[in-house]
C-alpha cells in the first residue's frame, strides 16, 4: 500500500516539481530546465509503468476538509483504466518532451515551454488518477489552463493568442455544464467519491431518479463536448493548431481532448444508466465524426487535416462508449493516442524542414525525400485509416462491433461512412505529401543540404511511436483484461464491411491524388457547393460569429453604456455634489470679521428668542 502511495506520488508530482523548479529558478538556464523537465517526465513514466506492473489496488483516499456533512477527499484511483491510460499519458508526454528538444531548440523561451509541458503532464496525470469528482474537476480545469498557455505560447502572434482564448472560452462553455453536473451529483449522493458513485449496489444509478440521472449525465456530457471538441463546440480545436506542433501532438492524443473521453470512460456506468443520454451522445458523436471527416477532406494545411481527424476520431470513441462498450472506447482512445501523436510529430518533421504547413507545398518541395518522416506518416496514416494489422484497425473494429451489437444500424452506417472518409482523407494527405505532380530540384532548397533532416531527439520519439502505433492493435486482450471485460472475437465476415470501406477510401484517394496524372482535386470538388460548405467548416464558426458573438457584443456594448452612463455617471454626480458643497461652504469663511460678528449676533439673537419663548 505504501509502495503504491510513493509510486503514485512520484508519478504525479515529478512533473509538478519540474514545473515549479523550471518556472521559478531556471528562466535563464533553458538547458538545465529542459533536462529537469525531461527527467521529471521520465520519472513519471517509470512510476506509471511500475504502477501498471503492480496491478490494480484499492483506491487511496485522504481527507482534505470537512464542511458540514460533506467530506472532500484527495486521493488516487488505481484501477485498470487509470493505470493503463496513465502510462499512455506519461509515455506520449515524454516522447513529446524529447521531440521538443529538437523542434523548439532555437526558441528563446524554451524554459517557459518546457515548464508548461510539465504543468500539462502534472494536471493530466492527476486528473487521470483522481479519486474524487471535485478533484477531477480541479485538474480538468488545470489541463485546460495548461493547454491555454501552450496554444498561446507564441504570444507575439495575434492569431495564437486568439486561438488560445477561443480554446479556453469554448471549453469553458462546456465546463459550466460539467460543474453544474458535479454539484448535482453532490446534491443527490452527498459525496464525490468516484468508486462509491459507480458502485453496483447503492451507487448513483440507484440513488438518483431516472430524470435526475439523465440531467446529471447530460450536464457532464456538456463538459465532455467542450473538452473533447464535439459538435457544436468543436471549432476551437482546428484553431489550436496555432501552438507549436509538439503541443498539438500532446493536445490531440493523450491530454486535453482525451480528458473528455476519459471522463466518460471513468463514469461509464452512470452513462449506461440513462438511455436518453446515450441516445443524445450517439447522435452528437455521429454528427461530429461525419462533420469533421468532411472538413478534413478539403483542408490543405496538414495540421488542420490532423486536427479534423482528431475531432472525428474522438466522435468515434464516444460512439463506442455510448454504444455500451467501455472496452471499444478505451481501446480506441489508447491506439488513437499513439498514432495521432505519431502523425503530429511526423507532420512536425515536415513543417520543421520545409517551414510550411501546406501539403501541396511540402509535396512539391520534396516531402518524400524525408524518408524517415514519410515512413512515420505512412504507418500513422495507415493506423488512422484502419488498415490491418495496425493499431487503428482493431480498435475501430471493436467500435463497429459495439455499434452493430444491438442492431443500431443507423449508427453503424454512420461509423462505416466515417471510416470510409477517414481512409480517404488520410491517404489524400499521404499522397499529397509523397506523390506530388512534380518535385522541385534539390538546389532550390538550401535547407535540404543540412544532411540528416532530423536530429536524434526528434527521430527517437517518432521511432518509438511508430512501433507503438504498429503493435497497439495487439494489446486488445490485455486492455480488455485490465478493464475486467471479456474481449469478443470477431469473425472475418463481421470485419468485411469495415475492410471494404477502407479499401474503397484508399482506392478513391489513389484515383484522385495518387496515380500518375491524377487530377489532384478531390471528388468533392465536382460539387462546388459542398466543397465550399466543407471548406468553411459547415459555417459553424460563421454562425457563431454572426449570432453568438454579435449578441454578446451587443450585450457587452449595452452593459458598457449602462456602466458609463448610469453607474459611473451617478458616482461622478455624487463626487461633483460633494465638491460643490465644499467649495460653497468655503465661501462662508471669507475672513471678514464683521461678517462673522454679524452672524454671531443673529444666531445668539435667535437662540435668545427661542429660549425666552420657553424652549
Amino acid at each position, binding site marked *: 500500500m505504501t509502495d503504491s502511495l510513493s509510486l503514485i506520488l512520484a508519478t504525479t508530482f515529478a512533473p509538478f516539481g519540474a514545473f515549479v523548479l523550471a518556472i521559478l529558478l531556471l528562466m535563464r538556464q533553458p538547458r538545465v530546465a529542459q533536462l529537469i523537465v525531461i527527467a521529471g517526465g521520465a520519472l513519471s513514466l517509470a512510476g506509471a509503468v511500475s504502477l501498471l506492473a503492480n496491478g490494480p489496488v484499492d483506491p487511496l483516499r485522504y481527507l482534505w476538509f470537512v464542511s458540514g456533512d460533506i467530506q472532500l477527499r484527495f486521493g488516487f484511483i488505481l484501477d485498470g483504466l487509470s493505470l493503463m491510460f496513465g502510462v499512455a499519458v506519461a509515455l506520449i508526454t515524454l516522447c513529446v518532451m524529447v521531440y521538443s528538444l529538437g523542434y523548439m531548440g532555437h526558441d528563446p523561451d524554451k524554459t517557459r515551454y518546457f515548464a508548461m509541458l510539465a504543468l500539462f503532464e502534472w494536471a493530466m496525470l492527476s486528473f487521470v488518477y483522481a479519486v474524487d469528482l471535485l478533484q477531477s474537476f480541479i485538474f480538468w480545469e488545470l489541463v485546460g489552463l495548461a493547454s491555454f498557455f501552450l496554444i498561446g505560447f507564441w504570444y507575439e502572434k495575434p492569431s495564437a493568442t486568439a486561438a488560445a482564448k477561443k480554446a479556453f472560452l469554448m471549453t469553458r462553455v462546456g465546463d459550466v455544464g460539467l460543474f453544474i453536473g458535479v454539484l448535482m451529483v453532490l446534491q443527490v449522493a452527498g459525496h464525490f467519491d468516484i468508486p462509491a458513485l459507480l458502485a453496483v449496489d447503492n451507487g448513483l444509478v440507484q440513488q438518483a431518479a431516472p430524470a435526475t440521472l439523465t440531467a446529471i449525465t447530460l450536464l457532464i456530457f456538456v463538459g465532455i463536448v467542450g473538452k473533447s471538441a464535439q459538435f457544436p463546440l468543436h471549432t476551437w480545436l482546428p484553431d489550436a493548431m496555432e501552438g507549436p506542433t509538439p503541443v498539438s501532438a500532446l493536445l490531440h492524443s493523450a491530454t486535453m481532448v482525451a480528458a473528455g473521453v476519459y471522463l466518460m470512460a471513468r463514469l461509464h456506468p452512470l452513462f449506461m444508466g440513462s438511455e436518453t443520454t446515450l441516445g443524445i451522445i450517439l447522435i452528437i458523436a455521429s454528427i461530429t465524426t461525419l462533420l469533421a471527416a468532411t472538413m478534413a477532406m478539403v483542408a490543405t494545411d496538414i495540421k488542420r487535416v490532423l486536427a479534423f481527424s482528431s475531432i472525428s476520431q474522438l466522435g468515434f470513441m464516444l460512439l463506442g462508449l455510448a454504444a455500451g462498450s467501455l472496452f471499444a472506447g478505451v481501446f480506441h482512445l489508447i491506439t488513437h493516442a499513439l498514432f495521432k501523436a505519431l502523425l503530429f510529430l511526423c507532420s512536425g518533421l515536415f513543417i520543421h524542414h520545409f517551414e510550411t504547413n501546406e501539403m501541396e507545398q511540402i509535396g512539391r518541395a520534396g516531402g518524400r525525400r524525408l524518408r524517415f518522416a514519410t515512413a512515420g506518416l505512412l504507418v500513422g496514416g495507415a493506423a488512422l485509416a484502419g488498415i490491418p494489422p495496425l493499431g487503428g484497425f482493431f480498435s475501430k473494429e471493436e467500435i463497429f462491433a459495439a455499434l452493430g451489437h444491438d442492431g443500431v444500424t443507423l449508427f453503424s452506417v454512420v461509423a462505416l461512412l466515417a471510416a470510409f472518409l477517414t481512409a480517404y482523407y488520410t491517404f489524400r494527405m499521404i499522397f499529397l505529401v509523397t506523390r506530388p505532380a512534380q518535385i522541385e530540384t534539390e538546389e532550390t532548397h538550401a535547407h535540404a543540404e543540412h544532411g540528416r533532416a532530423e536530429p536524434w531527439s526528434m527521430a527517437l520519439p517518432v521511432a518509438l511511436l511508430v512501433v507503438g502505433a504498429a503493435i497497439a492493435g495487439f494489446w486488445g486482450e490485455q486492455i480488455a483484461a485490465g478493464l475486467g471485460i471479456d474481449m469478443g472475437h470477431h469473425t472475418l465476415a463481421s470485419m468485411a464491411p469495415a475492410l471494404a470501406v477502407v479499401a474503397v477510401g484508399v482506392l478513391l484517394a489513389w484515383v484522385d491524388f495518387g496515380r500518375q496524372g491524377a487530377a489532384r482535386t478531390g471528388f468533392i470538388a465536382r460539387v462546388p457547393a459542398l466543397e465550399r460548405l466543407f471548406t468553411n467548416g459547415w459555417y459553424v464558426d460563421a454562425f457563431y460569429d454572426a449570432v453568438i458573438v454579435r449578441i454578446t457584443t451587443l450585450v457587452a456594448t449595452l452593459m458598457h453604456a449602462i456602466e458609463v452612463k448610469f453607474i459611473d455617471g451617478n458616482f461622478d454626480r455624487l463626487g461633483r455634489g460633494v465638491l460643490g458643497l465644499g467649495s460653497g461652504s*468655503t465661501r462662508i*469663511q*471669507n*475672513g*471678514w*470679521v*464683521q461678517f462673522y*460678528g*454679524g452672524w454671531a*449676533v443673529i444666531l445668539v439673537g435667535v437662540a435668545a428668542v427661542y429660549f425666552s419663548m420657553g424652549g
Partner: protein
Amino acid sequence: MSLESLLLLSLVLFCLGLFAALSHRNLIAVLIGIELMMNAASLNLMAFNRFSVTDPTTGQVFVLIIIGLAAAEVAIFLSIILNLYRTHRTIDAEELTELHG
C-alpha cells in the same frame, strides 16, 4: 428714575455700539463701538445694583473691573491697529482677510 428706563437706555447704547462695530470698516470706529457696548453693559450692572441688590458694593466692583479691562483692551487694540497699519498700510476691516479659510 426707574429700572426700566435705565435698562432701555443701556439697550439703546448697546445697539448703537453693536451697529458701529459691525458697520464701520475703520478699525478705530469698530473699537469705539465695542467701548460703547461695554459701557452699556456697565450701565446695566449699575442699574441692577441700584434697584435689586442689598449690598451696593457688588455692582460697583464689577463696573470698576470692566473699566480697568476696557482701558487695558484699548491699549492692546490700538497697538495691534498700529502694527497692522505699519505692515499692511491699511486699517480697513474688509481688506484684512488673510486668516480666511
